Structure formats: C-alpha cells, structure tokens
C-alpha cells in the first residue's frame, strides 16, 4: 500500500475517455472495411511513428492521472507501536500526506525532490548565478555547487567524462531491450504477407525504429537524470524535465476533455438539426451563428475571469490547492468545449441532411423504425469518420490554445504545471543576461512533438476515412 487513493475529478474523466475511446475503436474494428482503413493508416510510416509517440504521451498522462496521498514517514516513537497496528486496523494510526501525488510523481521521485535553490543550466554541477559563499578564507562571490546536480561527483574536473560515461551506460542498457524487440519485429514482418496485400501491411520497420529510438532516449535520459538536471532547473530550483513531463497530462487533458464536452453537443445538435429539419434546424442554426459571431478569445477570457472570481469567493477554504487547480482546469475545458463545438456541428448538420435523404434511411422509415433508432443505427455510424477526423485535427489545436491562453493569463491555474505556464514564465527568463533558454526550449520541444504527431496522424486518418479524398485516387 503506497498510500490512500485520492483520485481527482479529472482523473476519473481521463480514464473514462480512454475507456470510451477504446470501446468505440473495438466496436468499429468489427467491420472489415473499418479494419482495412486502420490498417491503411498504420501502413503510413509517419502515422505509425506518430501513433507510437502519441501512445507514449498518453501513457505518461495516464500514469500522471492516478493520484493518491502517500504514507507519511513517521517518527520513531509512533513507528514502533504502529507496525503491528498497521496490519490490523490501518486507518487508526497511519497518517497520510495532505497533498496528492501521482504514480508519475512516484516514479520521478528522484528529480521531483531534487530541488535546487534557483536556476541551473542543463547537466550543470554549478549554479547559474554567483552567490556569496562563506568559506574558511572569508566571504567570496562564486558559483556554488548544486545541491543535487552532480552532487556525488567529487572531482569537478571529471564532469565531462562522467556525462559521457553515463550516456554510454544508458546506450548499453537500452540495447538489452532493443535487441529482443528487434528480433520480435523481424519475425513479425517476415510472417506477414508483403506482396499480395500491397502497401496495406503495417509499417513494422518504422514502428521498430520509433520504439527503439524512444527506448534509447529514455534509457540515456534516466541515466543522466539520476545524477544531473538533464534539462536544468528553473527559477525556484525545480527540475525542468520534471515540469515538461508533468505538463503532458495538462495538455492531453485539455485536448481530450474539451473534445468530450464538445462532442455530445455537436453530435446531438448537429444530427438533430440535419435529420429533423424544421424549427429544430432553425433554432440550432440561430444558436451557432450567434455564438460564432462573438470573437472566441474574448468569450473565453470573459468566461474564465468571471468563473475564477466565483471560485475565489466561494471555494477558497473548502478544497486543497490541487483540487482547486483541477476545478479550474475542468472549467477551462468546459469553456473551450462550449465555444468549440460549432465547426463540428456545422459539418454534422450538413452530412445528416445528406444522409437522411439516402435510400437506406427511407427504407428504415418505410419499416416504421422509430427516429431515435434511425439516428443511432443509420446516422451515427456513418458520421463516425467526420467525428474522428475532427477529433484528431482539433486535438492539436486545443493543446496550442492552452499555451496561448495560459500565456495571456486566462488559461489554467498558475500553480498548475503546464507548457503554457512554462512559456509564460520564460518571458522574464529571456530578458536575462546570460539567457535562460532551457524552460522555453523544453516546453517547445514537448509541445511541438505532441502537436506534430497529432497532425501527422490526423493527415493519415483523413486520407483513410475521407471519401472525397479517396475518390481522387
């Protein structure tokens, strides 16, 4: 038992999104046509690589979405007595920390706890700025050694060779994993028929290379991060790599939750407007033309500011800092969702208008099938590709939107770790001399990889699922 589970609302949501996504994928794959399309997507090397990287991001986000209150280390006096008591009636004597940590935090304990006093450059062993040091010889201004970064390195002259050594160790260790995976993939790609199926075989080679690349990077990074701040530290001494990794959850959450909110809205309103027509159509069209004529950023800013005010006034003493940040995040996604459904709704309305005239819908009506069933059996499955394409395209847009909004100051809670907040604080760092570039670069690389992969994957999905594009081939 690590501690007391304390899942946040957003944890529940992100796990249920994964569950829903997984189930709909499984249902979709029962149709051979769908299976073929997915195979087509995975046969595109860029999409295969993107998919693997996206899954890695998702895995990190999911690890970061299991929160609990860790057991507090107890002092001697109570420990002796409570060990036996612990096994019988755990709740009576055990104390838990007041703030939640996640599984990812646990895995990253090393770098999470290794807080310096302030800035330090990547892989440095000295602090970034001079401090007054009291030595035997008196007070001098010099760069002090870091508290954690390279602390066990006794001779600073060996700094460089130590880094090289550790890098090589990391490379060597990763080979232990990479070689068996390589053999596995080779068997796999030999067994799958290549010629007859044409280019429809999944891009196994790319898959292997991506996984191998990730493993090597991961292994080297682990080796180095154990003893150094791989990507430096920021103003209050927190490890930047840790911040970058923690931001993944925020980014994925913003993307996924917003989609979760806008999807039902767009689906219900769009299909109803298209299928039933008449006054329902008029009402929905009125709603979205009105909404879309208000400038989006203005709407979001106004909503976020007023909601924050409300939170500060009413909830300040009820909840923990973590839970408040979580609530603000949920509200932000809610607001993004409420303003973001319009595009998808338009598409769905137009497609439903077309679908309802199709003969199989008429045939169903001639059987007296009720409208709800027609919508579920005939319309929804045939709208799936539009929803899918929109999801993957919008996702990266939302991740970027978070960064922009946080930069402007109407995004997530300032206490929440996110790329937007990292970039926001980088504003001052860039004005320093010498330049502190690593926070910005880290946020940029993490975000760029996610957005690029999402876009590449979206392209492949669109190629596979958009009937209009396929007609041209």
């Amino acid at each position, binding site marked *: 038992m690590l501690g007391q589970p304390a899942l946040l609302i957003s944890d529940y949501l992100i796990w249920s999104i994964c569950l829903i996504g997984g189930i709909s994928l499984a249902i979709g794959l029962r149709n*051979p046509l769908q299976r073929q399309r997915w195979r087509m997507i995975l046969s595109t090397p860029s999409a295969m690589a993107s998919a693997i990287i996206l899954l890695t991001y998702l895995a990190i986000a999911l690890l970061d979405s299991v929160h609990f209150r860790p057991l507090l280390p107890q002092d001697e006096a109570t420990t002796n007595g409570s060990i036996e008591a612990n096994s019988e009636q755990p709740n009576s004597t055990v104390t838990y920390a007041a703030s939640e940590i996640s599984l990812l935090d646990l895995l990253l304990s090393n770098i999470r706890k290794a807080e310096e006093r302030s800035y330090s450059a990547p892989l440095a062993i000295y602090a970034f700025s001079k401090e007054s040091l009291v030595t035997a010889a008196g007070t001098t201004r010099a760069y002090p050694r870091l508290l954690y970064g390279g602390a066990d390195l006794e001779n600073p002259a060996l700094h460089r060779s130590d880094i090289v050594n550790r890098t090589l160790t990391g490379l060597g260790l990763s080979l232990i994993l990479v070689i068996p995976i390589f053999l596995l993939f080779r068997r796999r790609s030999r067994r799958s028929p290549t010629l007859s199926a*044409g280019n429809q075989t999944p891009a196994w080679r790319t898959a292997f290379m991506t996984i191998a690349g990730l493993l090597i990077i991961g292994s080297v990074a682990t080796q180095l991060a154990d003893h150094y701040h791989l990507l430096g530290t920021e103003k209050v001494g927190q490890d930047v790599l840790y911040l970058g990794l923690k931001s993944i959850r925020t980014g994925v959450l913003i993307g996924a939750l917003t989609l979760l909110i806008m999807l039902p809205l767009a689906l219900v309103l769009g299909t109803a407007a298209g299928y039933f027509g008449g006054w329902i159509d008029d009402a929905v069209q009125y709603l979205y033309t009105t909404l879309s004529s208000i400038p989006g950023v203005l709407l979001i800013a106004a909503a976020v500011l007023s909601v924050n005010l409300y939170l500060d006034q009413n909830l300040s003493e009820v909840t923990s800092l973590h839970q408040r940040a979580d609530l603000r995040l949920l509200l932000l996604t809610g607001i993004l969702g409420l303003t973001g459904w319009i595009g998808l709704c338009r598409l769905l309305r137009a497609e439903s208008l077309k679908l309802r005239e*199709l003969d*199989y819908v008429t*045939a169903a009506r*001639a*059987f007296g099938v009720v409208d709800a069933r027609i919508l579920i059996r005939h319309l929804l499955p*045939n709208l799936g590709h539009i929803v899918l394409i929109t999801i993957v395209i919008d996702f990266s847009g939302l991740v970027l939107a978070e960064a922009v909004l946080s930069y402007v100051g109407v995004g997530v809670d300032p206490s929440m770790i996110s790329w937007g907040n990292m970039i926001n604080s980088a504003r001052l760092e860039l004005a320093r001399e010498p330049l502190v570039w690593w926070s910005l670069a880290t946020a940029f690389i993490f975000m760029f990889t996610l957005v690029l992969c999402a876009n590449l994957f979206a392209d492949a999905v669109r190629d596979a699922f958009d009937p209009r594009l396929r007609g041209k081939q």
Partner: protein
Amino acid sequence: MNSVVPPLLDIRGLTVEFVMPGEILLAVDQINMTIQPGKTLALLGESGSGKSVTALAMMGLLPTAGFISAGDIIFDGADLTSYSNAAMRSVRGSRIGMVFQEPMTSLDPVMTVGKQITEALPRENRRASRKSVREQGVQLLSQMGIPEPQRRFDEFPHQLSGGMKQRVMIAIALAGEPELLIADEPTTALDVTTQAQILDLLKQLQKERNMAMLLVTHDFGIAAQMADQVTVMRRGQIVESASAQDFFQAPQHPYSQQLFAALPSLSKRGKPLFESLYAIPVAQPESSETTTPTDKPLLEVSGLQVLFKQRSAGLFRERETLYAVDGVSFSLNPGETLAIVGESGCGKSTVIKSVLQLLRPDSGSVVFDDIELTGRSQRQLRPLRRNLQVVFQDPYSSLNPRMRVTDIIQEGMIAQKIGGNRSQREERVNQLLEDVGLDISARERYPHEFSGGQRQRIGIARALAVEPQLLLLDEPTSALDLSVQAQILDLLRQLQHAHGLTYIFVTHDLSVVEYFADRVAVMYLGRIVEEGPAVELMTRPAHPYTQALLLAAPAIEVAQEKGEPTPHLLGEPPSPIHRPSGCHFHPRCFQAQPICSLDYPQAVEISIQHRANCHFPLETETS
C-alpha cells in the same frame, strides 16, 4: 465493299494495363478494330468491359495509373501511341473530338458557353476579329439545334438543361472540325425523348461532315439505330465484331446471344430472360392480364397531390409552388403489376413516397385494403407499414455500409416485432437469402463486398422480410447491366408468383414495361396522362405523349430501314413550377389545337380500363 479505302482508324493489338497497389490490372487485352471514314462503329459492352478505357487510350487521356503496354493506334496513317503529349494535344480536338457521358461535369461551370466553344475553334479561325469568332460560335450553337443561340452564347452551363448541355458538348467537340468523333455513352444521362433528339443530331451532323464516329454504348437499341459496324467487348476482350446488319440479325458469339436473350420485350412476356440461372420452369398461370375488374382493389389512390414550396431566391419574392404530383388517381388489384413511366422529374418517385406516407400528400387519399392511410400519425401507421414495402434504384445508397447483411434484413422484422426471437429471425434470413438467390454465407458480410445486382437482391430480401402484400419498386433495374437486369426481373416475376405480390413498378425503360407490367400509367409533369393495359397501351397508344415516348425509344427492329430520322418530340419537359396552361403537353404536341392551351382535358375512355387525358386522342386502328 470498297476495301480500297484505307481505314481512318486502325487499332492493332491494343493492350492497356492499370497499376494498382500490389497488382497489375489488364483493362484492355489485345483488341483490334478499324473505322472507315464517315462510318460509325458501335462499341457495345456491359460496365467494366473496357469500353471507356479504349476510348480514353485513343485520345491519350488515360488516367495516370493506366498505360498502353502493347499495340498500335493508327489514325490516318500515323501511330498515335508514339506521339508526345504535345503532339497528342494538337490531334485532340482538331482531328479527333470527344463527347462524354456526363454533361453536368464536363463543362466548366464558371465559363460562359460561348467562351468554351470558341476556345475549341481551330487556331487560325480564333485569330479573326472578335465579332467573327462570336459569329462562328453562334452558328455552331444553331447548328446544334439550340434555340436562341445569340442569348445562349453568353449563358453559363447551369442555366442550360441536360440535353442542351450535351448539345454544347457536341458543339465543342465539333468546333475543330474533327474527322473522328468519339462519343462515350453520349445519351445515358438523358431522358429518352432528349436522347432521341441528340442521336438524330449526331446522325445528321455525321452525314453533313462525313465524319467517322466511335460510339461507346451499352444500349442495343442505340447501336442498332446508329452503327454500321458493331464490336462487342467483354472483360477487356473483343468477343464479336460484325456489320450491324449481320449482328442484329444473327449474333454469332454465345455471349452476344445471351445478351440478346436478356433484352426484355413484348414477345418475351411471361418467359424468363436469363435462362441459364433460373432453369427451373415455374408453373405459371397464364398472364395475369385477365384479372377480373370485379376484384376488390388492394390499393386505391385518388386525387393525390404533393406540392413543394420552393425557398424563394429573393427576400421579398413570393414562395413558388412546385407541383410534383397533381391529382393522380389509380387503383390496383391484388397480384397485379402497375408500371409508372415518364421522363425524369415527372413525379414518379414522389408518388411512391406519398403512397408510403413518407411524404405527406397535400391532398387526396390513399386507401390500402380498405384502410385510409393519409392523415394517420406515425404511431398509427407503424403496424400498417409491413404491408407496403419499397425497393430502390441505386444499389449503392440503399444499403447502410456499416451494417451486416443479416442486420439489414432483420431491421424490418425488429421494427415490426415479427419473426420471433433472434434465432428464428436468423432462420428467416437464411430462407430469404435463398429466395433471392444469394448464398447463406452472405449473412455475415457487409454491403461493399457485393456487386450491384447482389445488392439489389439484398434490398429485395429486406423488403420481403416483413411479408408485404404490395411492393413498390422505384427503378429497381435502371442502374444495372443488361444481364443483371434480366436476372432481377426474373427474380421479381418468380417472387410474385410464389408470394402473390402486387407491384408498382416505376421505370423509364419502355421495353421493361412491355415485358413486365400488366397495366401502365404514363405520367407527364405530375399528372397521369394515360392509363391502360400494358399490351394495348404499348401497341396502340392514345395519348400523343405516349406515342412520342414509344417512338423515341431506340428499337432494334428498325435497324434495317435506317436513313431518314423519324420525327421526334421537340424540346424538353417544362419546369413543374411554371407549367403550361391547359394541357401541360401542348407546347410539344404536334396536334395541339387552341382549346388545348385553355382547358385541361378530362379522361376519355378509349376502351375498357384504358383512359387518356387528351382532347384529341389518337385514332387507334383496332386489330
């Protein structure tokens, strides 16, 4: 005869292949053919037989995946396969012209008609003054029989009707005065009456210009009307090549003979069209034309009217009313087949939809089995729906691509709460699949794995699943190939006998009507203009419109006496928004009198059960 004249076009061993992912597809396989100057070669074949690919290869217009892998195309002594793209471009248009099937998509929508025509003029003519270029264009338009060519010259394609667009296409193809015209299904997208006009036009232009023509078609009638030589293609190969006269008298190849057998016609009534598949002779009661008039009708439609309010273009303009169906009445006895025929847009599908109450009629009544259907709520209609079912034209949009065949067929049973539990329903699906001639293994598959004809069978099985008494068939065979159409017609006939079904059969193909129907209703602009027993109406039409339709249908029999084109119906159907006054047909009727534009004619009894709405019904000699 005059074998001294070298052929204008000589194709030797032409082979065209397509590179597909993972394989190479042989689309045209070593074909040979020749066309003499001024003559017409008809290239006949079913869909996918490689007709269009052959035509495109000759023009150097193959899609990027396709290439000529062997053979020569010798045009006037020069081998076109050795030409560069630039050289081909100068041949195209000026020496070989082409007309495509789809007039809607082959014209540029943002360019005026006149500009598109004058661009196709030979370069030296285009250099002349603007005025003379315009005159040439206008003259071409008037040669194509387009009324008011001066005005049309400045219009955009969307302002023209389908037939007019096809005339413009022909004008463009002929602007460069080509020696050879390739026409790829030039009339398939058009109505019979318009088709007849276009074919006449082509024939006349060919004679004036002594132009050779390659006519790609799937229609035997058109080939018989137009061709000097006939070549039949199947799966990329030529199976028969003969002079038109020989071919239509006695086709030699078994495949050609099979296609001839599949042609529906009056003389084949009651006999199967596709012998090999349904060899089981069904014991048939002699043709059901003898239905006694005392039978209680199963369906009685009277005064049916469906209006569509068009959304007005301007803000303050009044909404215009489109009379899709206006006062249609007919009745139908059990076991009978009523065919509804008419040109596109005359309201046939709308009649079907409003009989089914999928469109609420604005007035009139639909009485099925003594129960009035109009004015009932959806809930009240639900239990009645199992008695009336529908089969659609387009086999691609009529089945949901995301559902397995078994779910598609079970949908009606579930909605109507019949067929028992799941396993009993599955059992019934097996039975139905067998009934429509499909393998039981089809059950678990998805629609995209089936051909057009098989999909149509699934559609029929779906309708039959709820054991309807009346089946409404909206052009069930017009998207299908000839031999597949024959199989579906045979199947429908068999099912009618097995289950005592009553059919309403919508079609624009008159040969199907005379083969299949007991009674016929002819529609024009939303009204039934003539109704009567099929054989009588098809042989002795009383309404001038029916007669015009019959004349327009290209018949194989007249192949011998080719020459003077028969006078065809002029113009095209007016819009159902602005219908002509009085008899709606009067602007096109050759025997219209002043009274025709004033009063809508009442129904006149021609004989028992045969009525026509005409002031001056045709004298029909009694035989």
